[in-house]
Structures are given as structure tokens and as C-alpha cells.
């Protein structure tokens, strides 16, 4: 999801330059005149067809393997995981298939979830959902037929999880009755685990029906998504890969008996894939009943901001930073890293992505919609002097350089710095600006720019490649939680030989310990505070230059009442309605 999405952003936000004065104090605000994020309003009407236009297609519509923004738009309208995020509340999960918040044992190793009664599958299954269906859903996710991309990150703490890869039940998932499911963990991880239960891996799958699909790899549940047993307000009625998808009402669903918070206003969703972004953008802005399924291109965003302010919104999403390898000289020196942070002109970096409308200058890592953002200091940040001036502070940089052992105030060491960037605009421009700033500080930089995917898979994701600077990395969380934002990118235990995401290879015991505490904090408010504290510590360790909090633009036709799922930065199809 991370890679895909940042590619989309890279295309979407290119060369967008608007003369808008952003006020970075108020969160979630895009360019001047564009209102706050559209959430549910009173008096939304039922009925009608919502048409979605997107350039990209879906990757996986099987809830067990879906792991991409577009997939989520459909999956969360057609299926019900145990927990999910209400569109306007990205800070905490809401019970969905679950009847109430999970209960966590004192030792943080047992999680008990009650499942709602009255939730029925769509035809042909038609029966009530039971706890065994959730158990099967998680078990199948570990098989090669489903090959879930995040199960290893959040569900390997389950007892007896190794059996799942061989198609055997996981002993750590118990179903004492049809409406209770108990998760037994090998380590105290429950507080984070309950947040991960918002991932679509917990969408119930009826084993007696799905087993025949799961015999094949990849599962037929994915390749023939119309045949899934749906639990959400909509069913996938028609799907032609790369062309078209139709959602229709689920005959087995009604909000009251199902206890579903989704209003499901529209009768039908008609999704066209493969639309040219420029053409689709114009069609949406001038047409009726249309919304964008993926990021509109810069000219369309400009047009909307200038002529149709009510038809565009900007949703914060993910962060971008310039990672320095803390395990290799010269960046193993924390003062040297602080000197880099102090010197960096983050305004110049922001301009490379199109300025204020594309996103805000970051002062730490948790972005505005993340739980813990405010606790980490909000827009102002934790208050470190080396991140105080967004345009850079050469004098301060020089003083940190001196502390790092370079009395001239410039880097005078022998080490050559290897930097690997993305060769696609606008990332290439960002890399160029970063390169200049490193050189200005006296670094001898060997710079190489490669394809986006190659940059990750062959260089930045591989510690053995010994890359010292990755100027084009960024992170999107799997779900809206501090752990999902900060663990993989900055925890020493997250460092892996392949597909590593701790790009700075930060090994900071203080950070690790704070993460441990935060992970085990269950209460949402306390948890946000704890992760905010982690963010402060990470930022203070200066492993990377945080410089950008992206904002994803979304556009809709005039007669559409838009509702953005803030956790996904895309339209919530079960909330958006026709006026």
C-alpha cells in the first residue's frame, strides 16, 4: 500500500503551484478558501447512483488480501471488519462487526471481542455471521492463496500462528460461542492488536462457502469478487478487472438489524476504471453524480481550486522525510544529523511538490489526522531548535556542526555520502534540492536516481546496500494508529534484511522503550499521548528530516454530498450521497 500510494501521489501532486497562503496552525486546511474536510451532515438523502471515475484499478478485493487505498474504498462499503473508522473520526476505531470495544486482559495477552448478532451474509450464503468466520478469515490470510501483506506485522503474535501457513487452525484464536472470539497472544501486544482488528483481515469469511475458492492460489474469492459473501450494505454486483465495478444494495443488510453505523445512502455505485485523469477530472467537475476514485492531476486541482472550491477537499495523508543512515558514518553522529536538520530549507522542499495545497511543512512525523499529532506538538512540533525555522538556520547548523566535531561549521570528513533518489518528478526535484543542501553543508555526495520501485526494493529497503541518504521516502500507515505510523519506520526491531522500512535504521533504546509503553496503552486518549511522546523522541533523535505532510485532493460533482473517510483519505462510498 505504501509504495503504490506514494506513486499515485507522485503523479497527482506534480508541479502544482498555487499562490495560496496556508495557515499551518489550523489543521486540515488546504489552500485558501477551500473548506474543512467534508464529513456527514444532517439531512443527507437516500437513493440515486454514485459514479466513480479512477485511472488505477483494484489490486485485491478479497478482504483477506486487499491492501490499497482503492481496494479499501470498496471493501469497507461491502464488508464489515470487527472494527473500523468512522469517516470523520480517524483517531479511534469504532465497533463494526464487533458489538463493543474489545476487552483486554491485565497481562495484555488476551483480547476478547463480542460479535453482533443479526449480521447476515449476502446470498447465496444468507446465514448469520459467527465468530468462527472471523477465525477462518484470519487463518486463511496466512495461506499462499490469500497472501495477506500485513498479517506478519500485526498477527504473528497469536499463539500457534505458524500452523496457519500450512492451512491448519490457529490455536490462539478461540471461539467459545458463536458471538465471542478470543485472541491469545504470545506477548503483551493486545493494546496495539485491538487497533489492528480494524484491518480488513477480520472481515468474516464463511468457511463452508469460501473453502472451495481458497483451494486455488490465488483464491477465487479475490479473482471472482462478485461471488464473495458480503456483510456490508453493498455487494459487488459486477466486476471486470481494469474496466468496471458495480456495487448494488446487499439484500441481506439493513442498518437496524445489522447494527451498522453506515447510512449507505446511494442505491448503486458505478465505478469506471482506466479513465484518463485529466478527462475524468473535467467530467467530475462539470458532470452529475461523479466522484474521483483516485488522485486528480495537478491541472484539475488548480482548476477546481480556482473555479469550483466547493467541489474539492484536501485530506492529510502520510508523511515524507529524508532518511539518514544512523548506523554508518558520518550520520552515526547525532549532532551531525541535527546540523543537517537545522540547515534544511523545508520550504524549498515543499515547493518541489507544489506548495501549500499539496501539503504542509512537517515539524515531526505524525501527520495531522493521526492520533498523537496534537500531543506531539501539532503544527508547531515538539519545539526542537533544529526544526524551528522552516527555511533553515545556517548559524544553528554551524553550531551543531561544531558540536559534531567539525570546527569550521561545515562537514570536512572523508566519507563520501551515497544518496539514492527517485527519478520521477516531483520526487526527482525533491532529491535535487536535498542534494544541493547536503553539498552546501560540505558533504561529498555520490547521487544516483533510479525508478521509484527500484529505489525501495534494491536500495533503501536493503540495509546491505549501505545507502546513507534516502531523500524520497515516506510512510502511510496500515491503520490510523501511532504504532502503524511509527513502529516499522523507527523501531530497531523492525529492521529486516529485505523490504526493510526503518530506513534510517534507527536503533535508539529510548525510542524502543517508549514504543513498548505506547504499544501497551489501550485507552485511546492515553495511547495518543504515548505515541505523541514517541514522536517527540524520534524527532529529537534526528534520524531523518521530516518535511512534508501530504494532502490528498478529492473532487466531486456539484450534486454530490461528499463524505471523506479521513483514515483512507478517499470518499466513503457508504456515506457519500446524491443531493
Amino acid at each position, binding site marked *: *500500500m*505504501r*509504495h503504490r500510494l506514494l506513486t499515485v501521489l507522485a503523479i497527482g501532486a506534480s508541479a502544482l503551484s498555487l499562490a495560496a497562503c496556508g495557515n499551518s496552525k489550523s489543521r486540515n486546511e488546504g489552500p485558501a478558501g477551500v473548506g474543512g474536510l467534508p464529513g456527514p451532515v444532517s439531512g443527507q438523502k437516500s437513493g440515486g447512483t454514485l459514479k466513480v*471515475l479512477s485511472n488505477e*484499478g483494484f*489490486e*485485491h478485493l478479497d478482504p483477506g488480501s486487499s*491492501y490499497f487505498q482503492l481496494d479499501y474504498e470498496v471493501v469497507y462499503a461491502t464488508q464489515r471488519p470487527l472494527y473500523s473508522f468512522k469517516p470523520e473520526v480517524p483517531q479511534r476505531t469504532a465497533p463494526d462487526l464487533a458489538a463493543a470495544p474489545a476487552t483486554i486482559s491485565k497481562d495484555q495477552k488476551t483480547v476478547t471481542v463480542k460479535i453482533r448478532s443479526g449480521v447476515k451474509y449476502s446470498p447465496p450464503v444468507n446465514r448469520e455471521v459467527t465468530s468462527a468466520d472471523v477465525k477462518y478469515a484470519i487463518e486463511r490470510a*496466512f495461506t*499462499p492463496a490469500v*497472501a*495477506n*501483506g*500485513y*498479517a*506478519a*506485522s500485526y498477527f*504473528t503474535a497469536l499463539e500457534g500462528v505458524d500452523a496457519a*501457513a500450512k492451512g491448519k487452525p490457529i490455536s490462539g484464536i478461540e471461539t467459545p460461542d458463536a458471538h465471542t472470539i478470543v485472541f491469545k497472544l504470545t506477548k503483551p501486544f493486545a493494546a496495539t492488536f485491538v487497533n489492528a482488528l480494524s484491518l480488513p483481515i477480520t472481515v468474516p469469511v464463511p468457511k463452508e462457502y469460501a473453502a472451495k475458492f481458497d483451494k486455488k*492460489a*490465488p483464491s477465487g474469492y*479475490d*479473482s471472482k469478487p462478485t461471488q464473495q459473501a458480503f456483510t456490508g450494505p453493498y455487494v459487488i454486483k459486477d466486476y*471486470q*478487472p*481494469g*474496466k468496471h465495478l458495480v456495487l448494488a444494495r446487499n439484500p441481506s443488510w439493513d442498518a437496524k438489524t445489522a447494527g451498522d453505523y453506515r447510512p449507505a445512502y446511494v442505491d448503486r455505485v458505478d465505478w*469506471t476504471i*482506466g*479513465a*484518463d485523469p*485529466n*478527462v*475524468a477530472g*473535467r*467530467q467530475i467537475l*462539470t*458532470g452529475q453524480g461523479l466522484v474521483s476514485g483516485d488522485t486528480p492531476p495537478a491541472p484539475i486541482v488548480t482548476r477546481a481550486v480556482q473555479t469550483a472550491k466547493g467541489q474539492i477537499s484536501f485530506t492529510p495523508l502520510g508523511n515524507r522525510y529524508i532518511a539518514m543512515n544512523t548506523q554508518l558514518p558520518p550520520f552515526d553522529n547525532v549532532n551531525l544529523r541535527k546540523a543537517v536538520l537545522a540547515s534544511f530549507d523545508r520550504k524549498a522542499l515543499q515547493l518541489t511538490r507544489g506548495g501549500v495545497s499539496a501539503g504542509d511543512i512537517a515539524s515531526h512525523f505524525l501527520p495531522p489526522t493521526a492520533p498523537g499529532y496534537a500531543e506531539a506538538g501539532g503544527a508547531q512540533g515538539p519545539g526542537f531548535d533544529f526544526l524551528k525555522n522552516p527555511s533553515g538556520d545556517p548559524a544553528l547548523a554551524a553550531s551543531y556542526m561544531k558540536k559534531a566535531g567539525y570546527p569550521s561549521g561545515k562537514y570536512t570528513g572523508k566519507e563520501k555520502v551515497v544518496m539514492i533518489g527517485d527519478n520521477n518528478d516531483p520526487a526527482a526535484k525533491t532529491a535535487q534540492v536535498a542534494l544541493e543542501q547536503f553539498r552546501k553543508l560540505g558533504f561529498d555526495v555520490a547521487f544516483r536516481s*533510479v*525508478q521509484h*520501485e*527500484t529505489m*525501495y*526494493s*534494491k536500495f533503501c529497503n536493503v540495509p546491505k546496500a549501505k545507502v546513507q541518504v534516502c531523500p524520497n521516502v515516506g510512510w502511510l500507515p496500515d491503520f490510523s494508529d501511532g504504532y502503524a505510523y511509527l513502529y*516499522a519506520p523507527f523501531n530497531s526491531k*523492525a529492521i*529486516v534484511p*529485505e*523490504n526493510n*522500512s526503518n530506513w534510517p535504521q534507527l536503533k535508539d533504546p529510548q525510542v524502543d522503550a517508549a514504543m513498548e509503553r505506547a504499544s501497551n496503552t489501550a485507552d485511546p486518549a492515553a495511547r495518543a499521548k504515548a505515541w505523541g511522546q514517541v514522536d517527540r523522541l524520534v524527532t529529537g533523535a534526528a534520524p531523518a528530516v521530516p518535511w512534508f505532510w501530504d494532502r490528498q485532493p478529492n473532487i466531486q460533482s456539484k450534486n454530490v454530498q461528499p463524505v471523506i473517510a479521513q483514515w483512507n483519505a478517499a470518499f466513503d462510498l457508504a456515506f457519500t450521497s446524491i443531493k
Partner: protein
Amino acid sequence: MGRYIIRRLLWVVVLLLVVSATTFLVFYALPSADPAVLRAGKQPDPGLVRSIRHTLGLDQPIYVQFYRYMERLIVHGDFGYSYTNDADVRTQILDRLPATISLTVGAVILWLAIGLPVGIVSAVRRRKPIDRISMGAALVAISAPVYWLGLVSLYLFSKDIGKVHLFPGANTYQPISKDAGAWLGSLIMPWGVLAASFAAFYARLLRGNLIEVMSEDYIRTARAKGLAERTVILRHGVRAAITPIVTVLGLDIGILLGGAILTESVFNVPGIGRLAYDAIQRSDLPMIQGTVLFGALFIVLANLVVDIAYAFLDPRVRYG
């Protein structure tokens, strides 16, 4: 002739083998992302990556992978499975083929219907205003990027975002089997846009050929026979001038059947071109292989048809 065709068909097979081996090698050797890791996601369990690798057959040596691929292809006509699309490659290609054929055939008819008469008139009225105007227009049509032309025509003539609401716009394609009227309507502009540069090119080509042919001795003979000028031009001049164009036409059709990426993209006609483009964007090796092979097959077959057609068109050509 029969033996010639058989020999050429054998060549087709060899060529396709070479093409598939080349694409296989290129995408194996290029530093693109490892499909197994891509599929595994972040923080992957090494066991999961291993098992995906095994499922995809990526743990085998390259020659085994290639052999397996070719075996499935030749024995079962199986082009493999696209993991990013979660669909059978052959099914996908065959599913996209009608749109590509619709687009190509319509555009070919259109560009011949426009390009050939314009070429003839320009050649006959050489250096007259009508020649200057049509050749000027042709130059514009040839130089105009297809993508741009597509956008402009949509912004001008489409029913939804156009200035004049004439034709159905982008994202309206329907298969002919489902709704022939919608099919026709949705393809009018794509045909026009795709045909524009080809019509211009063919007009220029025919004009040039015809001007050359009209100074041939046999044209003088035809005139000396007392034939009407119209007959001289059409029956004697055009007949000779058009023969080389058949070669170009055959190849153009072959290439377009392999996918007209830009036109398909702007108007969202779900053809093979877009399928190939998306596959490349996503490092979807089986789909890349499949579309490249299909494209190569069309081009090679088009070449063969052109060569055979040439033997009928030009009696001086004989294959043994």
C-alpha cells in the same frame, strides 16, 4: 506459394519464441521490483516471501521458469496468471481484444476513406490551393500528439465536457454485443482521433507515390490510348501508387491490434494497449509477456499477410 507460406509460418513460430525469450530475459534482468516481495507487503515474514516465491515459481532457475512458461503456453495455450490483476492473462487479453479490434477497424476504414481521396486530389491538383490546404492540414494532423488531440476533441465535441455537445465522450465505451448504439457512439471520437494522423500520413504517402507514378511511361501510354483522365488516374495511376501503401497499411493494422495505448487511454477504451501499459506500470510480468507476445503475433502475421497480398497486387513479385 504454399511452401513459401509454410516456411514463413515456421519463421513466425521462431520469431515468437525469440520475442518471448527476450521479454522474459529483459524483465528478469532489469532491476524492477521482485513480484514476490511486492505481493508480500511491508515487514514480510521471510517464510511468506519464500512461499509466495515458490507458488509463483520464482525460486526456480530462470531457464526452468522460461521452460515452464513456454510449456504452458504451447501445450495448453496458457499465457499465465496476472497476480496484480488476479486474472488469467489469456482471458484478459481475449476480453480486451474486441475493443481493440473495434477501435482499429473503424479507424482504418475512416483513415482510408479520408486519406486516399485527399491524397489523390492533392496529387492531381498539385500545387493548387486545395493541395496546399490539405497538405498543410495533414502536417498539422501528423504533428499533433494523439493524447493532445484526444483531449482537445473531448473538450470541444463531447456531450459532457465539450463546448459543442456532439458525441458521447470518454468513459462511455460499451461492447458491441451489449449495446451496439452506445458502442458506435462511444467510438466516433476515438476513431477520429486515431485516424487523424494516419489519414494525414496516408494522404501524403499516396500523393507522393501518385505524383511519381503519373510521370511514368505507362501513364503516357494510357493517355495515348485516349482514356479519360479520370480513368488514367484511377485505373492506371492509383492502382500503381497504392500498392506500396498496402504494405504500410498491413503493418499499421498489425501494430494497432497490439494496442493503441494513447487513444485507448484518453477515451478509456478498454483495449489491449491499456492492458499492456498497466502491466508495465505494475511490473506484471505474465501480463507483459502475454501482451507483448500478442502484439508480436499480430505484427508478424500482418507482415505475412502483407507479403502474400503483395504477390497478388504486384504480378512481378513471386515467392518460391
